[in-house]
């Protein structure tokens, strides 16, 4: 999962302080694994260096934590590209996908589209597996089946998420 893209996404709704970003991240994505402050700081430095964010202002009182960051045009483009690119279909994708969906909702992008794109990617993979299975021996079949079932489980979760997008949108934008 890309912390950089996530933080960038969070910045899209408006400039924030570092500690604001950490709090928002923890609240929306870091339920059981809060972000370490050092991670925020290093990530923001990298984004700053790559020109994806800029410093919007510094609070009086000193300390590097008091910087306020804003996203640049390059940063917005980067987020969009990231959201539009399907993840490589592999098991246990949900945290990434979830992040993407929530960010899309937060930034008023087409979340259903993300799911559709992802499903398409999953199906591409599943077609390959199905084809391999059809041509392979029993061992191939069993191995492919394992992968297929996992992919299917992901997709089912995707479908469920898609079905609940409205409720999710309500929850994350509250």
């Amino acid at each position, binding site marked *: 999962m890309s912390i950089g893209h996530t933080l960038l996404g969070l910045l899209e709704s408006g400039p924030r302080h570092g500690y604001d970003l950490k709090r928002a991240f923890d609240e929306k994505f870091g339920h059981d694994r809060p972000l370490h402050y050092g991670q925020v700081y290093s990530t923001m430095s990298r984004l700053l260096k790559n020109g994806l964010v800029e410093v919007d202002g510094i609070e009086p009182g000193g300390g590097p934590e008091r910087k306020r960051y804003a996203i640049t045009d390059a940063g917005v483009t980067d987020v969009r590209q990231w959201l539009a690119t399907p993840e490589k279909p592999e098991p246990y994708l949900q945290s990434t996908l979830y992040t993407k969906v929530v960010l899309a909702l937060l930034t008023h992008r087409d979340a259903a589209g993300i799911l559709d794109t992802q499903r*398409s990617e999953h199906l591409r993979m*599943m077609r390959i597996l199905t084809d391999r299975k059809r041509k392979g021996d029993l061992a191939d079949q069993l191995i492919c089946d394992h992968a297929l079932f996992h992919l299917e489980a992901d997709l089912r979760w995707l479908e469920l998420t898609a079905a609940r997008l409205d409720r999710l949108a309500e929850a994350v934008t509250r």
Partner: protein
Amino acid sequence: MTAETMAPAGSLLAAHDLRKAYGPTTALDGASFSIHPGEVVAVMGPSGSGKSTLLHCLAGIVPPDSGSITYNGRELATMNDSQRSALRRSEFGFVFQFGQLVPELTCVENVALPLRLNGTGRKEAERAALTWMERLEVDDLKGKRPGEVSGGQGQRVAVARALVTNPRVLFADEPTGALDSLNGERVMELLTEAARSTNAAVVLVTHEARVAAYSDREIVVRDGKSRDMERIV
């Protein structure tokens, strides 16, 4: 726009901007679709999204409120009910989830039924039916009634029936919906193999990814709108 310009080049069956409402419920709200000969296209989407309605419209079972459907360059809306029935009898095949075999006819009579409806004699129709039942590995059931065979077997009989007229388009609406994985897989394998061998196009309505994985591409229907995934990427 004329029908020709709306239908993508080389497509066998194409629909453009279909709208259909059942009373206050909107089932289709600007859905489009196209399929080429020999292609297997999965129609996916959540329940109630309009998948089945799209299939019914494409097959000429239900007339859409607006929009155009062309089969082989012919606009379905210009055909009357009996012409569309004749089209379904001779050019299309159908597999549904369940409830499609006539319970009092034997399996072979069920498979022969579409041919008989087209006017083929009983003997000849049943001979052809038996060939297809062999291909779907259910020829040993020929004398049994649908109530006496298992779900998977019954579904294979249904597939044989759908293919017996050598249709150009096969419509399958959740064909494995009532089957377990193994049986569903087998039905899908036999169905797609048979369709490919006859160069028939398959419109496959399903919500199961593993079933959709037998397709060449998929379109997604959501809230009555369709998304053709290939063209977006």
